[in-house]
């Protein structure tokens, strides 16, 4: 799993590639914590390069979403496709998160 953070002024883009699962989700936590501490911003999570997600990966993203909202910020997901999109649809997270579905 690779990820990158880019500040675009009014919003931040978090791009996650590869596989976000029980093994790799913990590597993302410190970055997610920092985003939350940054306060009420908009975070766009670019998942166009994400090949696989499991319930641990979902948990990390949902946690980010809830914590950002609690601080007046927002999280949306873009570019989700394939297996991650199937999981999001099953868990009805596409309605919660998604600005741009493929």
């Amino acid at each position, binding site marked *: 799993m690779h990820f990158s953070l880019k500040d675009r002024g009014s919003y931040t883009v978090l791009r996650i590639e590869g596989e976000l*699962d*029980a093994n790799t989700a913990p590597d993302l936590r410190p970055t997610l914590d920092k985003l939350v501490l940054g306060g009420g911003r908009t975070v766009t999570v670019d998942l166009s390069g994400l090949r696989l997600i499991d*319930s641990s990966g*979902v*948990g990390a993203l949902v*946690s980010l*979403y809830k914590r950002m909202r609690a601080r007046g910020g927002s999280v949306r997901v873009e570019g989700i496709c394939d297996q991650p999109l199937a999981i999001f649809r*099953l868990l009805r997270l596409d309605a*919660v998160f998604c600005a741009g579905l493929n």
Partner: protein
Amino acid sequence: MSAFGEAFNNIAIHGYGCAATGQVEIDIEPSPDRLTLIVRDTGKSFDPEAVPMPNLEGLPESGMGLYIIRSFMDVVEYRPGSEGRPNVLTLVKLLDASPEARELQTSQASAPRNPKRQ
């Protein structure tokens, strides 16, 4: 793939309590109309019927694994182990997409075998 990953994680985390090592035996049985995965472990067993459905509207951060398994697989059977015998999880994915065939095959797949039937 999703279902197997969740099952494996559950065994590692809940069955073996995140121990450093644990044994998991995986058998994959392809056939023309279905794919069967049999996963055996000697960790702690559980009662799948006692696991609550996740409340999706509440945006859960955990407890979704079994729901994912049951949603993607057509047959999910769990037999807890006893002395000397492992827990056995059987996952079946039917390969015929039509709803009628799926319903017929699902009831056949999980019906108890009748030794008297020819």
